[in-house]
């Protein structure tokens, strides 16, 4: 809604009020070329000699004069109501049309309309050149420069407090970048004393009225901004007049210079890390490292624990995590210890020392050795381990199955006697007992989960002696464990008869064993287990089988580990996967020639891969980093498949993640303070 005077003026045929309000609303000049009035498109006293009216001089009387010129037929009473000005209006009855006089510019003589300086625009521009004032860099430098980081392409925002400002990302030719450029122009900064030069020239405070971009080439490293600025200049000899407001359109050019931001700086220098956590699980090559992969998956889901990690590297047996300070590393290591049993040892290395200040620059290494036992490993617990204090309780000197690896290792007797109760078949080995008891020697791994074999269950017979704890009399064998609510214990000892799946149709070879999976197995299930009879063990395993076992231990033929969900799942070996993927991704070869070439290529690849695997097995590729990568990739993919098939594993993963998340919450109140006090 326009004011009434504007509406009336529009009705009278003039349309200068459609211009934006910053322009001369009240100025309506007589064009020298034609006799008609036209709106003034020039702004303020700097304008060329068509109209020199300055906005600062518009008092109510002037406005009244202008309005009267526009509508000579308008009655005075309406006009007085519209302008709403002081008592001076009341005395004016019907003012005749008034035209402003032109006077010669006091310097050059061109006829101009009077303005506060009574000089024409050209003369004013000569005296007060705002462009030179605005284009000065800080401290009188020639250039105004904006800093950008070369790598991350973020712009620096100058801050008053510190010497370096924050780096932020801005789109080119965006309003935020415009604001940033305006902040960089010293002449516009009122608080920082950038207007010293302006004051010396005689220009007062400079205000920005409008700002817009001028397009520059994207990589020209120049930003051009067109500013409409307004400034009060002291007249050269204006006496009582004083204070002319000069408005000028100025183009300011800023140079973009590269400056590395703090984050990129940190990433570039290689002296940044001060502590490293080396997470290792040393198993024989080819054995799956389930614990490691589980930990890695759990860590990848939990970002909070990882927030102090600078970088991570993968090595043959595990991972290296780099941290900024020893405290971060220790905290990280303690989380890991909560999830998996490991031995933590801290060492340091001297980088440099300052004798005079009595300080030293050290690099710390926290090595975390994970217990190499994984789920579903078949191990032998040495009977001598108990002497050293690291025994497994009842299970010393027996062959055991590793059931769960968490903060402690849970073992199950591999060949339990029928008469014992279910609980007695289990034992827990806390982490430190493992290390104290002689580590590898005491807990020797016979089989790892790669050597699992498929068996078909032919007969299940629960051991009556082991079910006494339930209090109910089970006489049916069809009791099965279906979940936490099924009313039966998860594990029960049972006598089962199994046959190898490979033998199933062909031969009649069956094996009997006592297993703890009594409530889980049913006739016809597929179970995974280790075939002791038909396997060849490495020499140290053989030795321990003879020497470490108790006399009371009976070696079973077969040890069942777990039930296989969904019996028809095929096990893929690596080649098949790759082949299927390749077939899908490649487009079908059209001609026979290309098909032949494809087939030949595939055969070659297969051969190469087999050779590589053999070489790796034999140890020829010891130092090949690529082999490590492929190893861990294989481990990861195998882990993922197992995750799908095995709910137990999934549950363990969830538990590990929960542990980490929980531990993270513990961190927040206490440890943070400790860390901050350490760092400060």
């Amino acid at each position: 809604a326009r004011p009434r005077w504007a509406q009336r003026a529009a009705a009278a045929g003039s349309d200068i009020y459609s211009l934006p309000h910053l322009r001369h609303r009240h100025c309506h000049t007589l064009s020298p070329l034609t006799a008609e009035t036209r709106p003034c498109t020039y702004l303020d006293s700097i304008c060329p000699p068509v109209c020199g009216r300055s906005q600062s001089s518009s008092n109510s009387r002037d406005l009244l004069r202008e309005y009267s010129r526009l509508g000579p037929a308008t009655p005075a009473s309406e006009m007085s109501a519209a302008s709403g000005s002081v008592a001076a209006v009341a005395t004016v009855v019907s003012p005749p049309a008034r035209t402003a006089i032109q006077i010669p510019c006091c310097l050059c003589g061109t006829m101009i309309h009077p303005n506060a300086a009574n000089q024409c625009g050209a003369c004013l521009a000569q005296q007060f050149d705002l462009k030179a004032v605005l284009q000065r860099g800080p401290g009188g430098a020639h250039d105004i420069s904006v800093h950008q980081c070369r790598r991350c392409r973020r712009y620096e925002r100058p801050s008053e407090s510190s010497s370096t400002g924050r780096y932020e990302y801005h789109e080119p030719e965006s309003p935020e970048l415009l604001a940033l450029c305006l902040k960089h122009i010293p002449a516009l900064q009122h608080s920082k004393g950038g207007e010293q030069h302006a004051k010396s020239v005689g220009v007062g405070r400079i205000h920005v009225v409008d700002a817009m971009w001028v397009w520059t080439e994207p990589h020209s490293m120049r930003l051009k901004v067109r500013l409409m600025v307004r400034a009060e200049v002291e007249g050269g000899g204006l006496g009582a007049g004083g204070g002319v407001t000069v408005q000028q359109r100025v183009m300011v050019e800023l140079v973009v210079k590269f400056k590395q931001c703090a984050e990129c700086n940190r990433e570039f220098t290689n002296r940044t890390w001060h502590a490293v956590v080396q997470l290792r699980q040393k198993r024989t090559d080819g054995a799956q490292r389930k614990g490691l992969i589980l930990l890695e998956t759990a860590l990848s889901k939990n970002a909070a624990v990882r927030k102090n990690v600078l970088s991570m590297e993968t090595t043959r047996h595990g991972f290296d995590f780099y941290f900024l300070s020893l405290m971060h590393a220790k905290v990280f290591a303690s989380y890991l210890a909560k999830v998996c049993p490991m031995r933590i040892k801290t060492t340091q290395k001297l980088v440099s020392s300052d004798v005079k200040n009595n300080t030293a620059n050290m690099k710390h290494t926290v090595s975390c050795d994970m217990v190499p036992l994984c789920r579903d490993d078949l191990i032998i617990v040495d009977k001598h381990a108990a002497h050293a204090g690291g025994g497994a309780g009842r299970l010393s000197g027996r062959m055991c199955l590793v059931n769960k690896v968490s903060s402690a290792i849970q073992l199950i007797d591999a060949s339990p006697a029928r008469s014992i109760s279910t609980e007695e078949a289990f034992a827990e080995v806390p982490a430190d007992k493992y290390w104290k008891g002689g580590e590898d020697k005491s807990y020797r791994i016979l089989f790892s989960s790669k050597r699992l074999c498929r068996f078909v269950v032919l007969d299940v017979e629960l051991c009556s002696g082991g079910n006494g704890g339930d209090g109910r009399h089970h006489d049916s064998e069809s009791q099965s464990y279906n979940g936490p609510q099924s009313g039966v214990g998860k594990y029960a000892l049972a006598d089962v008869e199994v046959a190898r799946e490979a033998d199933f149709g062909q031969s009649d070879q069956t094996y009997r064993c006592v297993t703890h999976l009594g409530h889980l197995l049913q006739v016809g299930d597929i179970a995974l287990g280790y075939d002791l009879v038909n396997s060849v063990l490495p020499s140290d395993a053989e030795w321990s089988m003879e020497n470490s076992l108790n006399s009371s231990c009976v070696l079973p033929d077969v040890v069942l580990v777990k039930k296989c969900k969904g019996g028809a799942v095929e096990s893929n070996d690596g080649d098949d996967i790759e082949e299927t993927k390749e077939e899908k991704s490649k487009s079908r070869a059209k001609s026979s020639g290309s098909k032949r070439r494809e087939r030949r290529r595939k055969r070659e690849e297969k051969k190469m891969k087999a050779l590589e695997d053999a070489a790796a097995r034999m140890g020829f590729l010891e130092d090949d980093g690529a082999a490590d990568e492929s190893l861990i990739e294989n481990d990861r993919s195998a882990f993922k498949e197992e995750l799908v098939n095995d709910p137990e594993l999934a549950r363990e993963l969830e538990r590990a993640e929960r542990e980490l998340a929980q531990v993270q919450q513990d961190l927040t109140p206490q440890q943070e303070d400790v860390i901050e006090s350490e760092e400060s």
Partner: protein
Amino acid sequence: MATRCSHENSHEVGVFAALTNSYCLTGVGGSENFYSVFESELSEHIPVIHATIAGGRFVGRTTVGNRRGLLVPNTATDQELGHLRNSLPDSVVVQRVEERLSALGNIVACNDHVALVHPDVDRETEDVISDVLGVEVFRQTVAGQALVGTYSKFTNQGGMVHPRTTVEDIEELSGLLQVPLVAGTVNRGSDVLGGGMVVNDWSAFVGLDTTSTEISVIESIFKLSTGGGAGGQRQAQQSDIVTTMRSSLIDQLS
């Protein structure tokens, strides 16, 4: 003939001096340079007198007069009044005026025939003015400003008004005063004409800051130019200045 001068680094000549066709008053300053400028120009024709009003040197703005008389405000002391009476020729009547607005030079602009006064001046003062100075008094504003003495300056030959006076106003005033008027500036664009210059029928003194354009305008409207006998008949056409002098001015400035 317009002369540039300054009073102790101030270019507002009209504050410190009053000039009429029969005498000239100058304020007392630290040095005699200002006085000597006037003396060198005028002393063979008219008396140039040192004066103070109420102990101050701003005689130009506190007094007003023409060749017949001089009016001083009530703040002038008796000694000053006596000094003026003694120094001025006998044809000049010196009169003290009891007026609330005591800066008489600001509120009254006059020549030998007509005077413009501030609209709020008392009736008695108006009578005194018309009696002592022998002029016809009009209450008028110039360019909406009540201080007619500050924003306009006129002699018997011509006059200059505030640059923002409209054409109609100028015509009206010119009709009243019966002299040609022009809107102009003095002292590099200052619109305070009464304070910036003093002028009489044959001479003018302006501040040092005055540009050549302004001086040419002043000389043309007050008919001061000594260039040829046609000076008196030449019309004060600003366009003449622009066309004849502008090219040379621009050459100088650029």
